[in-house]
């Protein structure tokens, strides 16, 4: 039961997938599980749908764990999904949001990679697809999107950690999201969660031109990081991807933005390098707790600014 699941611990893919069923069972009128596709190694790609009814309501997409070694993101995803379910009917803002919008939440976006980090190589980042003509495995699923695909900040070498793949959306883990979001047609925000570096960013990553909605996205990012910092004092930097870190082509949020999802953000959670990808599990709940108000800021803003 949910009562025995330890949110302060890292879990295997099977444990997380079992927990998805527990969450659905505990909140049958609110949470359902849908399968949007299969990974390269034929694992199901599950998405939690938080909905109180209505057809094709405006929706928010959240994904965690597209880079498999960023374990705090899947763990934060589990905590956040549970929080959404638990707070509906208790917290007026969550109740209001879910009475008017749907939230789709993919917690393990790269299940093959995540399983591989548990079984074979804790430092694995990419998908597990075989690359023709190379002994190197995998594609960086955050360079595989059709937004400046193949440009600077991605690699054409299959052995690179930022290998873009043979063509845009070559990875089923990416293509499944593309098909789902385009098929839905009413996704208003996309939040893609990574670690580490403590940043909140928005388009663009593949070009230096400011996004048409730069000012609004920037102001909302500032509010979100301020509210995040108010919890434990954790400082985040924010801005466009290209200004905040570097040029990166073919990323999730650039694709979303260019396909009409105005509120497209990417988080880089804790820490700033003391532990990096090996963040102790004692920091899972603090990380998720401080991220929660920032997520709420974005979600509430989307609700209050229909377009």
């Amino acid at each position, binding site marked *: 039961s949910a009562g025995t699941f330890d949110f302060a*611990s890292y879990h295997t893919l099977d444990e997380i997938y079992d927990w998805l069923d527990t969450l659905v069972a505990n909140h049958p009128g609110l949470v359902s599980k849908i399968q949007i596709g299969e990974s390269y190694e034929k694992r199901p790609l599950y998405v939690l749908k938080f909905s109180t009814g209505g057809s094709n309501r405006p929706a928010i997409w959240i994904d965690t764990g597209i880079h498999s070694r960023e374990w705090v993101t899947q763990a934060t995803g589990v905590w956040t999904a549970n929080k959404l379910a638990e707070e509906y009917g208790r917290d007026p803002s969550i109740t209001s949001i879910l009475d008017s919008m749907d939230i789709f939440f993919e917690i393990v976006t790269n299940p093959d990679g995540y399983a591989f980090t548990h079984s074979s190589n*804790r430092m694995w980042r990419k998908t597990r697809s075989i690359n023709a003509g190379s002994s190197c495995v995998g594609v960086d699923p955050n360079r595989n999107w059709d937004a400046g695909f193949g440009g600077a900040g991605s690699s054409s070498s299959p052995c690179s950690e930022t290998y873009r793949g043979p063509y845009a959306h070559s990875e089923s883990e990416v293509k499944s999201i593309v098909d789902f979001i385009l098929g839905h047609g009413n996704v208003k925000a996309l939040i893609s969660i990574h670690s580490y570096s403590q940043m909140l960013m928005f388009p663009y990553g593949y070009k230096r031109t400011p996004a048409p909605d730069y000012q609004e996205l920037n102001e909302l990012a500032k509010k979100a990081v301020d509210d995040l910092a108010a919890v434990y004092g954790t400082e985040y930097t924010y801005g466009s991807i290209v200004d905040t870190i*570097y040029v990166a082509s073919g990323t999730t949020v650039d694709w979303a933005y260019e396909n009409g999802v105005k509120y497209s953000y990417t988080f880089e959670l804790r820490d700033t*390098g003391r532990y990096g990808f090996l963040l102790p599990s004692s920091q899972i709940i603090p990380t998720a707790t401080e991220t929660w108000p920032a997520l709420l800021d974005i979600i509430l803003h989307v609700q209050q600014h229909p377009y």
Partner: protein
Amino acid sequence: EQLFVGDQVLRVTASNEEQIALLRALGQREDLQVDFWRDPTKPGRPSDLRVPFPSLQAVKIFLESHGISYSIMIEDVQQLLDEEKKTMMLARGRER
């Protein structure tokens, strides 16, 4: 299961574009098998680099010979992994 005994994570700070180019070239050397946890981007902004134990000496000599400053962020990656695994086992026991 791949082990990371003796691997270190170095925090590297390039002071100019030339040093950034050198770090990028370092990342592409297949013999060293280094893994950038945070890519080198601009002068003054630190990047993090996991270096396998067998490559440590060569990488440190490379950095020093090019005047690129670094510090050790993680002394032994495997030690952190062992702790992580132990914590998971304990939690699993508690859950049962």
